[in-house]
């Protein structure tokens, strides 16, 4: 409940929305899908700026990339033809594990990334496919990677307008572990690999819900470069991930358990990629 909201504004452009945000950041909240804002209990918030009319709810093919508006819902993204053409079942399956139908109809891509939720499966999946963010702020539009976006101090943070998905021919797999079917992930793991024949050219190993914000395990990725992908690879990744994991404990699980889960899920993800190519 936001007890002190006095204004609900529905700007029609991102510029307008940003100007409204800049007027008083402390007392303003941007509204996307509503699932996070509705749970806020802040009495500081006096203005809600609804982004629904800003036209950010489309997915379009651009040269060399796909741009998905920040207001695109998880279900919309999951069912989208362009996305299916580009990524096959990757998003359909992995987003299908998120929340439930009702929630997927509400939660948006931008709204999942912006609050910096550690457990967001969406963020992990998007990082896995190498998504970057198109943002609008005081420096006009710019493209940032997800990690860099959060380097900007929150007092100056721009508005995420689009998620930019590069055109590339990689292999992807995503696994999550949760205590029950409708629960946030205890840990999630996305792995992408670029292969030249069987040689691993490059990879992304993204671990989320650690319980901290998803991060790439760069040391693991480096160790994999130029390795030949074979039956041993999943096991190798498993032990690399086990050794390089950094995470924490909370009421859902201990750091030790997560460390273990991360290595197991990583192994399974690599196995799945292997199933595609081997």
């Amino acid at each position, binding site marked *: 409940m936001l*007890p002190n909201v006095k204004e609900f504004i529905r700007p029609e452009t991102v510029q307008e929305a940003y100007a409204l945000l800049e007027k008083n950041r402390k007392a303003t909240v941007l509204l996307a899908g509503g699932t996070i804002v*509705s749970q806020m209990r802040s009495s500081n918030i006096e203005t809600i700026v609804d982004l629904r009319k800003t036209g950010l709810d489309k997915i379009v093919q651009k040269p060399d990339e796909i741009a998905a508006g920040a207001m695109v819902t998880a279900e919309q993204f999951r069912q989208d033809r362009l996305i299916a053409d580009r990524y096959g079942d990757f998003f359909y399956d992995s987003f299908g594990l998120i929340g439930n*139908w*009702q929630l997927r109809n*509400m939660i948006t891509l931008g709204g999942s990334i912006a609050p910096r939720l550690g457990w967001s499966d969406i963020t992990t999946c998007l990082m896995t496919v190498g998504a970057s963010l198109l943002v609008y702020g005081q420096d006009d539009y710019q493209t940032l990677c997800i990690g860099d976006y959060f380097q900007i101090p929150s007092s100056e943070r721009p508005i995420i307008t689009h998620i930019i998905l590069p055109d590339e021919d990689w292999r992807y797999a995503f696994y999550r572990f949760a205590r029950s079917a409708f629960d946030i992930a205890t840990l999630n793991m996305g792995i992408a690999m670029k292969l030249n024949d069987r040689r691993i050219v490059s990879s992304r190993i993204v671990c989320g819900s650690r319980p901290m914000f998803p991060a790439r395990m760069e040391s693991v990725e480096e160790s994999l470069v130029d390795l030949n992908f074979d039956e041993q690879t999943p096991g190798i990744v498993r032990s690399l991930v086990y050794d390089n994991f950094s995470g924490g404990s909370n009421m859902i699980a201990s750091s030790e358990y997560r460390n273990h889960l991360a290595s197991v899920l990583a192994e399974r993800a690599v196995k799945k990629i292997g199933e595609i190519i081997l």
Partner: protein
Amino acid sequence: MKITINVNGKTHVVKIESAEMLLDTLRRLGYKSVHRSCDSASCSSCTVLLDGNPVLSCCVFSATADGRFVETVEGLGSGEELHPIQKAFLEEGASQCGYCIPSLIMTTKALLAVEPDPTESEIREMLVGNICRCTGYEAQTRAVKKASRYLRGDEE
């Protein structure tokens, strides 16, 4: 602020507070089938269809429903006649305390609109958010299957 929403075909022009939730607005308008239970997007007792899609009204700001179409279980059936989904739920004993039922029926309606003949696993997947504490889900799964047969005309 004032919004215009269409609920079950009836247009309401209603004054709301800026941060009001659709759940509260609908209950205030008399749509008491929309139930508050967890109030944190975790149980789906407040599910309504917004422009045909099931959403959780406990986290939809009423202001964002301006100009849109809402469906609740009050809009189903006509007079004494139950909607086939309601009929199936009643017959299969899918409703015990009944608190989760209106939202489950609406989610089922949306499901059967996109998938008229769902498998058991599709039913479970698509309705996973609808928490029921009484029935243990088995009777509900039977009811959804029966409702799909009713709607397809496979069973009278």
